[in-house]
C-alpha cells in the first residue's frame, strides 16, 4: 500500500474542527477524565488566585505562632517560623504549576525542531541526531538535573531549563517518527514539487499533522515535571527557601516530623493529586486521539 493511502489526515479546516469536537466529546464522556480535568482546573484556579485564597502570606512570619498544631486559625498548623502551612501550599501550587508548564514548553521548543529536522533530512543527519538523543536519554533523570543545576546554579528559571532539557528527547523521537511517515505523503511531495522550501514544508505541512502525539506527551510530561521539581526542591538544590514550593515545604516539614507531620504530608498529597490528574487526563487524551486504543482494557 502506498503511503498516501494509509488513513490519510486531510488538513482541511472543517475536518479539523469536527475532529476536535469529537475528541472533546469523547474526552469528557469518561468520568475519570472529567474528575481529573476538574481537579486540574481547581489547581490552576488556586495557582492564579493564590494571594486572594490564602489566609496568610507566602512567607509571613509570626514568632508568637511557632509550631502551632492544626487549628481553626491555621488549618494545617505552622512551621518553626510561624508560617501558615496551608497558605504556603496554596502558593506552592503557583510555583509548581508554572514550573511544570514552562519546562514542558522548553522541552517541546527544543525537541520539536530537532525531531522535525532529523525525520525530514534522513540519512546521516538523522542517524547522528538520533545517536545524540539516545545518549541524552541514557542519563538517569535526577542525575542529569543535578548535572545541569551544577552548571547553571539553582533558581526557578534554571530548574525550568534543566527539566525542559532533560525531557526534550521524547518530543524529538515522537515528532521524528511522525515526520518520517508524513514526508512521503502526496501533499508533501506536491508542496515540494511547487518549489516550497524545506522550512515552509516542515512548518505548514508536516508540523500541524505531527502534533497529535506531542499534545498527549506534553500532558503526561506536566506531571513528571512537577515530580522532578519537587524532588530537586526537596534536596535543596532546586528552588531555595523561602519560596514556597511543595518540595521545599516537604523538606521543611521533614525535620519537624515528630512535632507536626502535616507539614510534610499535606504538600505530598497536593503533588499526588496534581500528578494523578494530569496523568489521567493524558491517558484519556491518548485513548481518544488514537482510535486503536478505544475500548482496550
Amino acid at each position: 500500500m502506498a503511503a498516501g493511502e494509509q488513513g490519510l489526515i486531510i488538513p482541511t479546516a472543517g475536518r479539523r474542527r469536527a475532529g476536535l469536537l469529537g475528541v472533546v466529546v469523547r474526552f469528557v464522556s469518561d468520568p475519570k477524565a472529567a474528575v481529573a480535568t476538574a481537579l486540574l482546573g481547581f489547581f490552576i484556579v488556586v495557582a492564579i488566585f493564590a494571594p486572594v485564597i490564602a489566609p496568610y502570606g507566602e512567607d509571613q512570619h509570626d514568632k508568637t505562632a511557632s509550631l502551632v498544631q492544626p487549628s481553626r486559625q491555621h488549618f494545617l498548623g505552622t512551621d518553626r517560623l510561624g508560617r501558615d502551612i496551608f497558605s504556603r501550599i496554596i502558593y506552592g501550587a503557583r510555583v509548581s504549576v508554572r514550573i511544570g508548564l514552562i519546562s514542558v514548553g522548553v522541552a517541546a521548543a527544543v525537541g520539536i525542531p530537532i525531531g522535525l529536522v532529523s525525520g525530514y533530512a534522513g540519512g546521516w543527519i538523522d542517524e547522528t541526531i538520533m545517536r545524540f538523543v539516545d545518549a541524552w536519554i541514557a542519563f538517569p533523570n535526577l542525575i542529569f538535573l543535578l548535572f545541569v543545576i551544577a552548571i547553571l546554579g539553582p533558581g526557578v528559571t534554571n530548574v525550568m531549563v534543566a527539566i525542559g532539557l532533560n525531557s526534550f528527547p521524547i518530543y524529538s523521537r515522537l515528532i521524528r517518527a511522525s515526520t518520517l511517515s508524513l514526508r512521503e505523503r502526496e501533499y508533501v511531495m506536491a508542496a515540494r514539487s511547487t518549489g516550497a522550501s524545506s522550512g515552509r514544508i516542515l512548518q505548514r505541512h508536516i508540523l500541524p499533522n505531527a502534533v497529535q502525539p506531542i499534545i498527549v506527551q506534553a500532558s503526561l510530561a506536566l506531571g513528571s515535571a512537577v515530580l522532578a521539581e519537587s524532588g530537586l526542591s526537596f534536596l535543596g538544590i532546586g528552588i531555595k527557601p523561602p519560596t514556597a514550593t511543595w518540595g521545599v515545604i516537604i523538606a521543611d516539614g521533614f525535620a519537624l516530623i515528630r512535632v507536626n507531620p502535616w507539614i510534610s504530608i499535606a504538600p505530598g498529597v497536593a503533588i499526588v493529586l496534581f500528578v494523578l490528574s494530569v496523568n489521567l487526563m493524558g491517558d484519556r487524551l491518548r485513548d481518544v486521539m488514537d482510535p486503536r486504543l478505544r475500548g482496550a482494557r
Partner: protein
Amino acid sequence: MNSLPVLVIVSALAFIGQQLVPGDPILAALGQGEVAALEALGPEAIEAKRRELGLDRPLPVQYVSYVGRLLQGDLGKSFRTRENVKDMIAQRLPVSMKLNVITFTSNVLIGLLLGVIAALRPGVPDFLATTWAVMGVATPNFWVAILLILVFAVWLGWLPTSGWVDPFDDPVRSIRFLILPVLANGFFGSATIMRQTRSAMLEVLRQDYITTARSKGLREQQVVIRHAMKNAMLPVWTVIGLSIAGLIGGSVLIERVFAIPGVGRMAIEATNSRDFPVIQAVVMISTAAIVAANLITDIVYGYLDPRIRYD
C-alpha cells in the same frame, strides 16, 4: 542502543558541561589555595601552570586527554575537598550498589508476584493492584519514604528512622535499616513492573495454547508458570530494564532521606557546592551502569525468546 557511542557522547557532554561552569578552569584543576599561592607569584606563574596542565590547548585536544584520563581511572580531584574523586567514589559506590541491587530484586519479585495475582484474580486484588500502579507513578518516592518513616519509625517504633548497616557486616541488623529505603524506592519501580506483568499475562492467558494446556489437564500452577509466564516475560523484561535508570535516580533522594552514605548523597553535596569533577564522575558512572543494564537486558531477551539474535 549502541553502547559505545552513548558513552562517547555522554563523556563529551560531561566535558562540555565543565567548560560551561562559570570561573577559571585552573581553579577546578588546582583548587582555591594553590591558585592563590600562584597568584602571589604573578600572572606568569599561573600561565605557566595553565600550559603545564594543558588548559591552553584547544578544547578537542583537552577532551581527548580527558577521555584518556577517564580510561585510566583518573576522575580528577574534588573542587571542595581536593580528595581524589576516584577514592570518594570507591568509598561510596559499594553502598549505593548494595542498596540498588536489593531494591531491584525486591521490585522484580513484588512486581511479578502482584502482577500475576492481579491478572489471575479479577475483582478486588486486580483493582487494588491497578490502583497502586496508578498511584505509584504519581507519588514522589521521597514522600513515600517520609510516610514510611512516620508510620513505622516514629509512630510504631518498629524500624530505625535512618542510617546504614552493611548487609555483609551484620546481615540481620542491616535488614532493619534496609526495609524502609527499599520499599520507598521500589514503590514506583515495582508498580510499573506489576502493571506490565498484569497486562502481558492477561494477553497471554487469552491465547489458544493456554486453553489447550488447561484442556490437557495441567495444573493451574503449571499453566501459569511454564506456559503463560515464560511468554509474558518479554515485554515485562523491557520494563524491568528501563526501571533501572529510575532506580539509580531515585536512590539519590532515598539516600538523602535515610542518611545513607552513598554516591547519591555525595552527588547532592557536590551539586550544592558546584563541585563539578564529582558530578562529572557520578554522571559517567551512572550512565555506564545504565548502559551495562541495557546490555544485560538485551542478552536476556535472547534467552527469553530464542528467535531474537544480535549480529
